């Protein structure tokens, strides 16, 4: 069984570190395993995901957005971290965020594959207004229901390709001002 890699790389990457310094190392399987795991983990480690800050919720702006996120090998499902300010009505509840993606339902309109994320009570300021020390946007996650065959548009996990190669997941998202893709489901065994 070979689950994908996942580690804290901080201070743990050296391009000169050696598995062994011996000129004639013994036929040690542990050395081979170490060499394989180092490469395998580097390839299958999930990528950093961008927190996209933008105004896609103010009615005068482009509120339907298309963009792409890169997903490392073995990514199967994800949440989205969303953000919204108080616009168009400060303190009011905004329209639900709608998410469509290559693996979840594409091209738009995705019908029952549409992911609909209810918006919480909004922040106390309009986009671009006062500093976060005075007022803040709301940040929340899309749903955790792992449903790959929905019969209605619900708040569920975003599906990903689960490929052994990196893939670009294309998105169409409506009504938010922040988006970060959080890969949470991965192929449990890559053998």
């Amino acid at each position, binding site marked *: 069984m070979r689950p994908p890699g996942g580690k804290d790389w901080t201070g743990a990457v050296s391009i000169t570190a*050696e598995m062994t310094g011996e000129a004639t190392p013994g036929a040690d399987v542990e050395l081979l395993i170490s060499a*394989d795991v180092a490469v395998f983990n580097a390839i299958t480690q999930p990528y950093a995901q961008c927190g996209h800050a933008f105004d896609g919720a103010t009615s005068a702006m482009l509120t339907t957005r298309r963009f*792409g996120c890169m997903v490392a090998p073995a990514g199967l499902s994800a949440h989205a971290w969303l953000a919204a300010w108080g616009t168009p009505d400060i303190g009011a509840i905004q329209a639900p965020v709608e998410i469509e993606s290559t693996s979840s339902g594409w091209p738009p309109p995705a019908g029952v594959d549409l992911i609909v994320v209810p918006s919480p009570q909004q922040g106390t300021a309009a986009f671009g207004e006062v500093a976060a020390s005075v007022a803040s946007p709301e940040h929340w996650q899309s749903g955790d229901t792992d449903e790959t065959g929905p019969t209605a548009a619900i708040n569920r996990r975003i599906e990903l390709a689960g490929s052994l190669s990196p893939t670009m997941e294309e998105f169409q998202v409506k009504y938010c001002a922040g988006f970060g893709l959080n890969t949470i489901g991965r192929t449990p065994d890559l053998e």
Partner: protein
Amino acid sequence: MAINSNTPLSVVAEATFNALPVADKDPLLTILENANGMYEAHAPALISALYTCEHLITGRSAVFWIPVLPSIDGLDYDFSHWVYGGAGVGAVTITVEEYIAGWGAIHASGALGLAAATWLRHNHTTAISASATILRVTISRAAGSEFSPSAILVRPGTNAPAVGVKASGFVPFDDGMLAVGTSDAGINTEHLNRGPQNAMAILRDRRQCVWSFVQEYSQTDAVYSTYTSPLSDTVPACFGQAVGLIPFAHDPVVTVYAIGVVDGGATTDLIDVYQVGKSGVKLDADGAVQSASLTLEMDASGTIEARAKIGADAACKAGQVTHIAAVIVLWRPGD
């Protein structure tokens, strides 16, 4: 003899190691060609941004300046641009320039068709020079037709490893080094070390985008400035917040790159990029790329959900206006 790459990844079964009596040609060959495959295919986003800009632009171009720190190997990058077309059927053009000592064009799309009320995704593969510090993206549409820039994604393209040591430290593996027979190949220290060292060289060379905010460089055309929210240098305006993720990290060090613009006067420390509730860095809004390191304290640290809520503010001096043209936060494994 050939430099072969495993794309996609070739997974060595766990049982292989259980059964292996001695070090042999395989699985070492697979490990080394997986590392070659990583050079060819490893593609975290270098730039990923959703533009904040005027909706349904007509009669002018939209111009974005985006800080960049590309691979030292001068890799090919895959670009994707998303543009929404409003009324009209005029052609769209997209150009990309890189800044080194001056601006140099690296891509010109030619005329791209776009029907009214539809989307355009324009893809191209373009090398970015190792010493480039800014990408300038210009999007235009024929007079009388509307357009709304939505997003850009830049990630390493397909870069088959060619012979020769790379500036990143990557050394392509040639199968001739293990091709003498199938069971009697010589195994030496280099064979064991090369795969991991190549993988680490790739990780260190390819920055990963953790956070972004981009609007037009021109203060006249930009949507948000401190004028939009006329405050002061003690109560700045917030230009955006979002959650960026670095899976499994605890306290990674990221590098913040920002371009801020003022309409005059002092520029010092007007841009503030911060982790919400934690520390931040202040950068000058002098129209050029400024950078600083920032240590993040991740929420859900050490897990696949490790994340940081990041924001960008700008202050202004009395009687003057500041706007943020771009903030890009980059990270590389090891930092």
